[in-house]
Each structure stands twice: as structure tokens, then as C-alpha cells.
């Protein structure tokens, strides 16, 4: 018999609030990673050249691609990090179940991914301003956020979902490794197989290279749900704290 009865929602909410404060370092490392990405982006993500009437035209495109690559690695790392024993033991400060702990982790990863997605997208503007003012090369006034609001929101959404799916992948990998150290060997083999085999390439094409963005969004959501679902199922098999 307890003096207060707590619902799953209340427990999850309390855990999320605690974890957001506790994982502030993850956000700081994200900022650090984005700044490194921006530094590498100053030379441009791609260069195009053409020649017309004896005139050479070179256009250096500055986009979010490099920042995104760095953030993607960070997302995998963060997803994995919160499954480690030290982080899991933090949950024992609360009256908690495996389910509430997982739900809180998922919500925190979702919030962090939204933050990472929006800031990754906006970080390009810092480079725009810097290169426009201090750069020696001429620039073209490309469309900004206000010029392409729907496209910008769409891009932010996709970046966020990509980051979330990667962090869910990291989370699943972390759970598997916590379950058995054998996965430290198995996971890299699976990843390499996907990247180097024909079946793996086909799978990547089906998941990411769609004609429609909406299909990409659906695929990413589906992938994230599957990864988190498997992670929740696996976490129930973890040992209790000694």
C-alpha cells in the first residue's frame, strides 16, 4: 500500500524532465560537433563548373551536408551512450519500470533530435552571413528560410527524422551490446554487410532513395519505430541492478 499512486505518464514525465537536465552535455557536444562541421563547410559542399563563350563559371555550393554528416555520427553516438550502465542506473532514482525508462529515453531522443534537426538546418545561415561579409568570393543571394518556408520546414523535418532514426539505431545497438558483448562484433559485420553487399545496397535504395519525400518520411518513421520497438523488447531481458 502506497500513500500516492503514480501513473505511467507521470513517471515518464518526471524522468524526461530529469534526463533533459542530465543530458545537457549531449546538447553541448552537439553544438561543438556542428561548429566543427561548419568549419569544414567553409570550402563548400560541392563545386560546379561550366564554360560558356570562353567564360569559366565556378559555383561553390555551401549547404548543410557536412554539418549533417557530423551530426549523424553524433546521433549514433548519443543513442548508444544513453543505454550504457551508468545512464541506465540514473533511472533507479525514480520508481520506474523498463517500459517507463524506455519511453522516457525515446522522448528525450526525440526532443534532442528535433533540437539537432532545427539547429543543423539553421547553422547554414551562420556560414551564409560569415562568407557574405568576410569572404573574398562573390556570393549569390540564394533563397533564405523566409523565401522558401515550406521547403525549409520539409528539409528540417527530414533532417530531424534522419537524426532520430540514426539515434534509434544507436539506441538499439547499445541495447544489444548491453545484452551481449558478442554484438560488439556482430553489429559492425551487419553494418559492413549492408554497405558492401548488393542486397544491402538495394535495402538502402528502397529506404532512402525514393522519388517522393513523403515516402522517405514514412520509411524513416517506420524504421525508427522498429528500432525502438526491438530495443524495448530487448531491454526487458537486461539484468537488474545488483
Amino acid at each position, binding site marked *: 500500500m502506497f500513500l500516492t499512486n503514480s501513473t505511467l505518464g507521470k513517471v515518464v514525465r518526471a524522468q524526461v524532465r530529469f534526463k533533459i537536465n542530465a543530458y545537457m552535455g549531449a546538447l553541448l557536444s552537439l553544438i561543438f560537433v556542428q561548429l566543427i562541421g561548419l568549419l569544414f563547410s567553409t570550402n563548400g559542399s560541392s563545386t560546379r563548373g561550366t564554360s560558356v563563350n570562353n567564360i569559366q563559371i565556378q559555383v561553390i555550393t555551401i549547404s548543410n551536408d557536412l554539418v549533417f554528416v557530423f551530426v549523424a555520427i553524433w546521433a549514433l553516438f548519443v543513442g548508444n551512450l544513453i543505454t550504457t550502465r551508468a545512464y541506465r542506473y540514473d533511472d533507479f532514482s525514480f520508481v520506474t519500470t523498463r517500459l517507463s525508462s524506455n519511453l522516457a529515453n525515446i522522448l528525450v531522443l526525440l526532443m534532442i533530435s528535433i533540437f539537432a534537426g532545427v539547429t543543423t538546418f539553421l547553422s547554414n545561415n551562420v556560414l551564409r552571413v560569415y562568407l557574405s561579409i568576410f569572404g573574398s568570393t562573390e556570393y*549569390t543571394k540564394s*533563397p533564405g528560410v523566409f523565401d522558401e518556408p515550406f521547403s525549409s520546414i520539409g528539409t528540417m523535418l527530414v533532417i530531424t527524422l534522419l537524426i532520430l532514426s540514426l539515434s534509434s539505431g544507436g539506441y538499439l545497438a547499445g541495447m544489444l551490446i548491453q545484452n551481449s558483448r558478442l554484438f560488439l562484433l556482430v553489429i559492425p559485420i551487419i553494418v559492413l554487410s549492408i554497405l558492401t553487399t548488393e542486397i544491402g545496397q538495394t535495402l538502402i535504395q528502397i529506404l532512402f532513395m525514393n522519388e517522393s519525400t513523403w515516402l522517405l518520411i514514412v520509411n524513416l518513421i517506420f524504421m525508427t519505430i522498429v528500432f525502438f520497438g526491438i530495443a524495448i523488447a530487448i531491454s526487458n531481458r537486461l539484468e537488474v541492478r545488483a
Partner: protein
Amino acid sequence: MTVIMAFIPILLILLFSWFIRIGMKNLSKRIILTKGLAKGIILSYISVLFLAVVVYEFLPDNSEEVITLNELEKLENENQVFDEAFRKNEVSKLKNDFLVEEWTHEVEGDTLHVVTSNSDYLTAKVYVEWTDSKEQQVEGKVYRTNIFIYGMNMKDRIPFSKVKWEENQLIIEEPTKQEFKYYRFSNNLALFTINDILPSIESGRVQGETYVYLKVPKHINVVDEMGLQLY
């Protein structure tokens, strides 16, 4: 070899992850961040990002006009209509907006030479319309169609072929070699270029050309010494 190449990005990712992990460990030992300081850094960063969005909007537009994909298609269409009209000698359909210059030139004798500064190809399209006039005057019009490279208006930026007279020679001069370099900022990830999230004009290109329309009296011979194609 390709298998080895496939491993390189993975190794780089692992190296980078390791680098971040070690770096963050060292940093956390040396710098003790209070909750307030961490929040301050995050809020400052967000403020800088939003400020950059606003500042960028107010930056002066020192570049060529950037247009949308639909407008680009319209311009391409205008060029095609002009080219077709030019080839078919439908003078009334030649858009006056494309007219750059108009002149008359008095030719001495009965031969007009068309020469180009480029030895490989004619850098302008030339159409010769024969007239029944008994005079020595050659009328000419020079047109220049829309030119957009990677979605940027280059019409005034790129010098087109110039047409000049030297006695009985009509010389089509190619511009001197120049190089232009631009930064272009993109909201999109290259990763999405295959998806419809990128209705991109970044790869859009409308190839403009210089057209020379000549009205030459029938008794004057037009000699194209380089064997170049005249319409």
C-alpha cells in the same frame, strides 16, 4: 579495391567517434559546467542561429537575380521559340527584348566575308536573308537570348560574342577568357536531390546564344572562309 574504398568512410567515422569521445572526456575533466552555464551556452547558440537567419535576409543583394524553377522553364521556352523563329526566318516572331544592336554597313565591292575569332566553331548563329536591293548596304541585327547558369541570371554578367566590321569583313569575336567564381548557399541537403524536397533550380540551366540576322543584297556574295554553317 572497391571493397577497401567502402571501408574508408567507416574507418573515418570510427576515428571521428573516438576523437569526440576522448575529446569530450578530457573536456569534462577540465571544464566543469554548471547547469546555468550550459543553459547559457545553448541559449546563446540558438540566439546566434536565429540572428543569422534575420541578418542574412537583410544582406544586400550584390548578385545576379535568382529565379524559380517555373520561371526558368519559361525562359528556356522563350529561347526555343526564338531559335525556331530564327531558323525559319520568321522575323516577326523574333522577340525584340533580345535585340542588342542594330546597324547598317556599306560594303565595298561584291563580297562580304564572315570571319570568327574562334577557329573551331562559330560563336554566334548567323542567318542571311537575301534582298533585291541594288544598293551596297547590309542591314544587321544582333540578338542575345536568355542565359541562366545554375539558376542565376548571367545575361549581363557574361560577355557574349561581339560583332564588328573591318572593311568588308564581319568579325564575330569571342570574349576574352575570364573566370567567375560564386558562392551559392543551399537550404537543401545533396542527399535529398533525388527526392522531391528539392525543386532545385540549382542545376537549372538555360543556354543563351548570340544571333546575327543579316539582310544582304543578292548581288553581294557572302563568303564563309572557314566553312562554317550559315542559315
